[in-house]
C-alpha cells in the first residue's frame, strides 16, 4: 500500500476533502470514501458509462480517473442534479417517460444528458444518440431515454426555433 493522499475538491458545489490511495479511482473515492453511491460501476473500463460524472466542464467515466486527479477540481454527480427537493427537468422527464427500468444506468445517462443539453440546447435524435453512445442501457432499447432527453430539452430551453 502506498501512502494515502489528501484530496481537496468540490463535489456538488460543496467543498469536500478525502483521503485516498493513488490507485483508487475517482469512482471508488466517490462511492466508498465520500459515500456518494449514486454513481454506479458497470464495467470498470470506460465502456458502459454508468460511472459518468462531470469533472470540471466535461463528463468523464469516473472509473478511468484517479481520485488524486480530482484535486482542485469541481465534480457533479447524480446526487447534485436536483435543486433541493425539486427534481432537475431531466430527472422528471425520465420518470414521466418511463425512461428507466432497472435504473442502474440512469445516473450516468442523466449526467451525460445534462452535458448534452448544455452543448446542444435542442439536439437532434442523431446528436442525442451519438452523444449518449458511451452509456449502455440493457433494459429499454433507448427509445424512452431519447424521448425523455428531447422532452427535457424543450422543458429547459423552450421549443426549438
Amino acid at each position: 500500500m502506498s501512502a494515502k493522499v489528501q484530496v481537496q475538491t468540490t463535489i456538488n458545489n460543496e467543498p469536500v476533502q478525502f483521503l485516498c490511495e493513488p490507485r483508487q479511482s475517482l469512482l471508488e473515492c466517490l462511492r466508498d470514501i465520500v459515500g456518494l453511491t449514486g454513481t454506479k460501476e458497470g464495467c470498470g473500463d470506460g465502456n458502459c458509462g454508468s460511472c459518468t460524472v462531470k469533472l470540471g466542464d466535461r463528463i468523464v467515466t469516473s472509473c478511468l480517473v484517479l481520485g488524486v486527479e480530482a484535486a482542485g477540481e469541481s465534480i457533479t454527480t447524480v446526487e447534485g442534479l436536483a435543486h433541493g427537493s425539486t427534481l432537475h427537468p431531466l430527472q422528471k422527464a425520465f420518470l414521466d417517460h418511463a425512461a428507466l427500468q432497472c435504473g442502474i444506468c440512469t445516473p450516468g445517462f442523466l449526467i451525460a444528458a445534462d452535458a448534452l443539453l448544455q452543448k446542444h440546447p435542442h439536439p437532434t435524435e442523431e446528436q442525442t444518440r451519438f452523444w449518449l453512445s458511451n452509456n449502455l442501457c440493457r433494459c429499454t432499447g433507448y427509445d424512452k431515454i431519447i424521448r425523455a432527453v428531447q422532452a427535457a430539452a424543450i422543458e429547459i430551453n423552450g421549443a426549438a426555433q
Partner: protein
Amino acid sequence: MSTTYNVIGTRPIRHDGADKVTGRALYGADLQLARMIHGAILRSPHAHARILRIDTSKAEALPGVFAVVTAADFPPAPADKIVDFGEGDTLLSSLRGNILASGKVLYSGHAVAAVAAVNAHVAAEAAALIEVDYEPLPCVLTAPEAMAPGAPILHDDLPNGNVAELIRYEMGDLAAGFAEATVIVERELDTATVHQGYIEPQNATAFWSSDGRIHIWCSTQGSFVARDASAAVLDVPVSQVKVTPMEIGGGFGGKINVYLEPVAALLSKKVGRPVKLVMSRRDVFTGTGPTPGSRVRVKIGVNDAGKITAAQAWLAYEAGAYPGAMVGPGAMTVFACYEIENVLIEGFDVVVNKPSTSAYRAPGAPNSALATETVLDEIAEKLGLDPLDLRLRNAAKEGTRRADGPRYKRIGCIEVLEAMKASPHYNAPLPGPNCGRGVAIGFWFNAGLPSSATLSVNADGTVNLIEGSTDIGGSRTSLSMQAAEVLGLRAEDIHPTIVDTDSVGYTGVTGGSRTTFSTGLAVHDAAQMVVEQMKARAARLWAVDEVAFSNGTFSGNGQSLTFAELAAQLGATGGPVSCSATVNPKGVGGSIAGLIIDVQVDPETGKTDVLRATSVQDAGKAIHPAYVEGQMQGGTAQGIGWALNEEYFMDAAGDMRNGSYLDYRMPTALDLPMIETIIVEVPNPGHPFGVRGVGEANIVPPLAAVANALYRATGKRLNRVPMNPATILGL
C-alpha cells in the same frame, strides 16, 4: 367485452422513481456496513483441468488478508445429495461445484478460491498469490463436438457421455404428413453463446452471526431462491438464512442462480465480519451463466393450400459446464405458434467447457424460433404467399394442441399476426436499395409460482403494500395499480415496500414474466380481503347487514363513506386492517409476440443498419402500458444485439477473448432506431384483470425477423447467428 378501469391502463409515475433518478436507491454494491471487508475470487485460466493442489499460504500471509476459502470449506455432504428449492431440483455437488470448483475446473473463469481482505485491491492481490497446480485436459466447446464419439468427457457420472438429457415430443404421423406436402424446406442454424448483459455486476454481502444466522444482502431476481440455494449450498436450514434484496440492476434471467452469496457467507464465518463480493465485468462474462449456444435443424412441409402438414426439429443446446441447457423450452416452443398435426421434436442437453448456462428471457425459445421462422419465410416465398398470411393459415388458437401435449386456452396468435399485418410499418414502402423487411413471431409460456403480499390500511386512507418481488422494471407500480384498482384508490395512494425473506411470505423470482401476474394475484386477493374487512367495519358502524363497495366508496342503508373516511375510523371500529395473501396460481396465460424489422446492408462491408422496428405483443391486459412498451422495446433491442453482433468469442483453448463491453458488442443508442410498439390485449381468463405477462416473448422473434430481413436485403440465407458483417459477406 371490454372492462373499464380507473387505474389499470394508466401511466402513473413509478413509486421508486425519485430514488432511482437521484441516486438514493441502494443497489447491492452500494451497501456499506460497519466492519465490512471485501473479497475477491480466483478463477481458472483453463477450460478443463484437474486441480492437483491449491496452496493458499502466500495469500494468507499478505498483510490485510483475513481469510481464504476453497471448496474444501463447504461442510461435508453425501455426493448424491439432491436439493429442492421449489423451482427445480439440483444435485448439491453441481450447485456447489459451480460456486467453487472441486476436483476439476470445467470452464475458463470457473471460481476456484476466494479471499477476504481489508479492501478489494488487497483481496485481488492476495487472490493472485494463491498457487493452483492444474493438469490441463482437452476441452470441448460446442454441442455437436461434445456429442461426437471420442469427445473429452466433462462428468464421469452422466450415463450418455456429454448428453445430460434427451427430450422427445411426437404427435401424429410424420412420414404421412411430409408425403402430403408440396413444399418441404429443411435448414440447420447455429447460434452462439450470448449473455444477458445486465449493467450491474453480481454482488453479495454476507454476515454470519455468532448466533448461527446468516444475513445476505444481494441483487437477485428472487430473494427466496437466493435464500434457499444459499442454505442448501451451506447445508444449513433455510430459516437460518435471511436475504435482504437490494435494488437490482437488471437480470433477464441471469440473476436467479447464486454465485457469490455462499462464498461471502463462508468468508464471513471465518472472519466474523460482513464480507462484500462484487464481480468485475469480465467475471460476469466468464463466471456467471450466459444462455446456450445451439444447433437447431428444422424441416417443415406445407401443402398447396399453405397448410403445414408436418414439422420436424432436432435441437442440441450447450448447457455449459453442468446439465441444464434450456432445450426443454426450446423444444416445447419450436412449433408452438402453429397448429400442426404431425410433429417430431428431439432435443439434447449437452455439457461443454463453457460457463454453466442460465436463463435469459424466454430461455431456449429464440434459438429454436430462429429455425422455424426462417424456414417458414422460405416456404412463403416458394409458395408466393405473404409471410404473415402463411402464418395466419396455420396460427395456433384456442384448443390447438402443442406437441408437448396440452391444448391452448385463449391465445392471441391470430390477433398478433393481424395487428402486424394492419400496422403502418408493414404497409409502408422500404426506403431504398439494399434494404429488406423481415417478420417473425414467437411464443412464451410465462410462469405462475408462489407469491405473497400484505396490505395494511393507514388512517389517512392510503395503503402500505409489503411484497417480496424484486423490482427490475416497475413492478412496484404494476402491483400497486392492481391494489388501487380493487380498493378504488389512486396508484400513488399505495406505498409499496419490498422486504427481506423474514418479513413476507414466500415469493418466487421476478422472472418468467410472472410478477405482474402472480404477485399481482396475491395483491388482488389481499385487496379483496381488505375490502371485505372494511365492509364489515362499515356494517358495524352503521349497524347494517349489507354494505356495498364500488369506486372507492362503501355504502349501505343510505349511508356512505369513502375509503379514506372509513380508514380514519378503523381504530374505533375494531382496530387496524391488514390482510395477507399467498397464491400458487394456475391460470397462467402464454404470450405471443411478433416483430417487423427493416434493415439496410452495406454490400461492400456487410454492415447492417436497423432502420425501423415494430414490436407487437399480446399482453393480455397492459396494467402500466409504458412499462409494457419498455419490456417490448428492451426485448427487441436485446434480440437485435443477439442477431447481429453479440457472441462469446472463444479461442481453441476455451478462453473468452471478448469478455468486455468493448468487444462483446451490445447495441449502443446509436445502433438502434426508435422501437415502435403495438400492445395487443387478448385477456387471460386466468387472471382477474386478464394479465398474461410481457417480459419474455418479445425476445423470441428478433433473431428470425432479422435473418429474414437480411435475406430480403442481400438474397442470402445465413446459417449462423450472430449475422455479423463478416458472416454476411461470407468472410
